[in-house]
């Protein structure tokens, strides 16, 4: 049964990918429905005004200012922007004021000629630094929407984009999800440009490339692919670009959207794309040859390829001293084992392999189990469910209430469950241990409950043997997983000597950085499961 559904995951994944392609085909037809506009800018300024007002009807934040300038020869100019997205000071000082102060009589020639007017304004009048000329009317609309100020001039065939974007944003602060004791205190913010600047400050190298593209038919979200040319594998980059180009979603609101569209195994409990909020961590990954995807509007940056060992790594490992860092790595590995296997091992010991427990320990276990009406399996399921409920309840609540919930959960429920004889003390200890250790490997928090339950099921069916069989299934799944062509269990299996030094222990930096750290991830061409396809020999 399990075999079927595991295989089914794979099939599902294939079908899902296929459907993405299908969707892409169907999307192509309705792609222009949202902005059904002429691409040419109308010559007549009045037409422009009508057109713009039509597009931005019922949008109170849309500002359109029509002014007439010039001393002798008057020209009409429209300045539009979205309120709250621009720096009005720049517009006032460098655009409007310049228009008023300019001496139009001095060089009347160009001012009157229609073909040169845009050039003239650009060169002579406006002092704002970032100006672009756009001929496509649709593009001007897009620019307005993304915070630029647009200037249309009567009679000109192009418009000026004045980039004076400025909106209220969160200042750089310490990331909440990945706090460290030692290390930089800055985290990514919602603004794409701030984020790329943070990375650029860390890696001052022209080889660090930022390629941008926009995704999302309705939202037009800016996406940035960062990598270091020469270190990152070209195949992975092109594969990534291909996968990104397949996304034809209406909206991209967070990097999680992208992640779900491009990941290798959508139905696997294990993530194949990494997420980080820390610039130093992302910079480190870039230097290891990985690729980062920054999405505008979210501080969470995706890194890929993502391997299993990375769940055990933390950026702090590289800042603290060797022994302590290695100790922490081992601790995390042990916690991973405890948090996934402890309830299953306990069930197997109690129900099947009682003989493994030493006599005196058995006496105290028996003592706590006497009078509990439930099977240890259901007891464990019930208690883990309780823990997951409390966790979820605590996260969504405001901080003070969240604390209250954890007190209620830990003290009241835990205590009274034992007192009521619904669960044994030892089971409470086991689940508490699992919970604590699961906080040590936060990167795996999404996959842990699944592994835990699968192993518990195995343990309830055939004790240790059931655990081994379930583990084998998980291991097979992990071994077959690939993240952008790189085997998911990479440094362990297939075994790679030069990378094993940064896994369960962390070797000294001077030995690691010599060569291997900068070597790229080799892309393997056959990343799909078609590997076992047999061709007839001709």
């Amino acid at each position, binding site marked *: 049964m399990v*075999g079927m559904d595991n295989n089914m995951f794979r099939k599902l994944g294939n079908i899902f990918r296929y459907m993405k392609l299908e969707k892409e085909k169907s999307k192509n037809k309705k792609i222009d429905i949202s902005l059904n506009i002429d691409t040419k800018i109308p010559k007549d300024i009045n037409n422009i005004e009508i057109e713009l007002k039509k597009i931005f009807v019922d949008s109170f934040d849309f500002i359109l200012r029509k002014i007439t300038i010039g001393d002798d020869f008057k020209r009409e100019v429209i300045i539009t922007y979205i309120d709250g997205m621009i720096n009005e000071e720049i517009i006032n000082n460098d655009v409007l004021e310049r228009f008023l102060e300019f001496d139009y009589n001095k060089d009347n020639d160009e001012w009157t000629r229609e073909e040169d007017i845009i050039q003239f304004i650009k060169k002579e009048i406006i002092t704002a630094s970032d100006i672009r000329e756009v001929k496509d009317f649709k593009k001007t609309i897009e620019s307005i929407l993304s915070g630029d100020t647009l200037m249309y001039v009567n009679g000109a065939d192009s418009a000026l984009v004045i980039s004076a974007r400025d909106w209220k944003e969160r200042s750089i602060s310490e990331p909440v999800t990945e706090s460290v004791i030692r290390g930089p205190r800055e985290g990514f913010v919602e603004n794409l440009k701030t984020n790329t600047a943070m990375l650029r400050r860390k890696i001052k190298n022209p080889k660090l490339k930022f390629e941008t593209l926009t995704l999302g038919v309705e939202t037009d979200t800016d996406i940035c692919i960062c990598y270091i040319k020469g270190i990152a594998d070209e195949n992975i980059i092109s594969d990534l670009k291909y996968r990104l180009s397949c996304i034809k979603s209406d909206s991209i609101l967070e990097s999680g959207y992208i992640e779900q569209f491009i990941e290798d195994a959508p139905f696997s409990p294990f993530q194949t794309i990494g997420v980080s909020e820390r610039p130093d961590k992302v910079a480190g990954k870039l230097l290891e040859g990985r690729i980062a995807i920054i999405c505008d509007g979210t501080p969470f940056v995706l890194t890929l390829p993502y391997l299993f060992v990375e769940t055990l790594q933390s950026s702090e490992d590289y800042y603290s001293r060797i022994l302590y860092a290695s100790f922490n790595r081992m601790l995390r590995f042990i916690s991973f084992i405890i948090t996934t296997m402890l309830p299953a091992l306990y069930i197997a010991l109690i129900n099947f392999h009682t003989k493994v427990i*030493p006599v005196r320990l058995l006496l105290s276990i028996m003592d706590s189990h006497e009078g509990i009406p439930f099977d240890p399996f259901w007891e464990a399921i019930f208690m883990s469910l309780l823990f997951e409920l409390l966790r979820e309840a605590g996260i969504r609540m405001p901080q003070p209430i969240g604390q209250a919930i954890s007190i209620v959960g830990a003290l009241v429920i835990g205590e009274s469950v034992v007192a009521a004889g619904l669960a044994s003390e030892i089971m409470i200890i086991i689940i508490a241990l699992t919970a604590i250790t699961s906080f040590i490997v936060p990167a795996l928090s999404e996959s842990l409950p699944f592994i835990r339950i699968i192993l518990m099921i195995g343990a309830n069916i*055939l004790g240790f043997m059931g655990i081994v069989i379930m583990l084998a299934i998980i291991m*097979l*799944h992990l071994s*077959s997983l690939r993240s952008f062509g790189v085997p998911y269990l990479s440094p362990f299996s297939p075994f790679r000597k030069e990378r094993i030094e940064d896994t369960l222990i962390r070797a000294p930096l001077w030995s690691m950085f010599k060569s291997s750290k900068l070597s790229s991830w080799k892309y393997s061409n056959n990343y799909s499961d078609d590997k*076992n396809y*047999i061709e*007839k020999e001709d």
Partner: protein
Amino acid sequence: MLKNIEISNKELIILMAGFIIGDSIIVNIARAVKQDAWISIIISWVFAYVLIGMYVYIAKLNPNKTLIEILIDIFGKYIGRILSVLYLWYFLHLSSLIFRSYSEYISIVVFPETPRIFITAFSSVALVIGLKYGLETIARTSMIAFIIPPISIIIILLRSFKHMDITNIQPVLEYGMNPILKTSFGLLTFPFGEAILFLMIFTFVNKKEKILKSSFISITFVGVLLIIISLMNIMVLGPEMINRNYFNLHRTSTVVPGAIIDPFITVSQLVLAAIQIWICIYSLLIGITQLFNLNDYKPFVIPIVIISVSLSNWLYNNVAEMFRIAQEIYPYYAIPFQFIIPIIILIISLIKQKGNSKSTST
């Protein structure tokens, strides 16, 4: 030909070592010679180098060909196909023998109430998934899982160190050399000679020139491990108990008081049995696709596993019969598959190669 499947030489070492150790970790085939078991293991170990060296040489003489292709190549279309079918039967039979022996161990020692068929069926879920994923995934998984058996052996060794009595290996050669040689021959056919299956696997190894080295590394590893286990059992249990007990290693672990270590044996036995069955059935599937010129083996995975499991169920009546047949009949049954046909293949391909080199030189 199979496209793109590649396993590294390290994975070959692991697969071969796991495959050869297999159920000899719990079943002591040399128990008939009591305290001299370790001598017969050493003798067969030495001959195993020659035998497996021969298999590797055959693979070298017929590069990029599996056993089935070699057979058809050497013996012609008809005889070659008949021999191939015989070999495929041998692979199937072997896989069901392994199914039987480990499930028998588990149903006798660990879960006496559970029906054996349930144990095999439940474990074959993982086996089927592995086969569907293919050889690369199997090799990678084995690479990680293979840490367990040596560690378990070391743990048992340390735990039982206090209970060892070195005089138990005396008197050496009590019954003379004859029974020892006979047992060695049995050991050469099981487990060492079973490496004939790797003629199906060698083509997938990425560094073909290092196959011999890798094979010898794994034989060395297997030999050392088997001798350690054998000596440990003899020293702890003494010759009489070795002869009487089906599962020596398990018995050794029950002698030790205090913390109980037999789950380690069960787990490592499962790992090794899984490697064995994977290799057997994978070879069988590849053989089927090549013999019948098919595109894909995946549709055959579930039927073949079901056949193998059901075959394992009616091979023997009980465990006593299983051990008797494994000790007395199996060696003779394996002779043609492990010795006669390979030697003929070797001779013919040597002659062919000579002919080729002559024709190219003239």
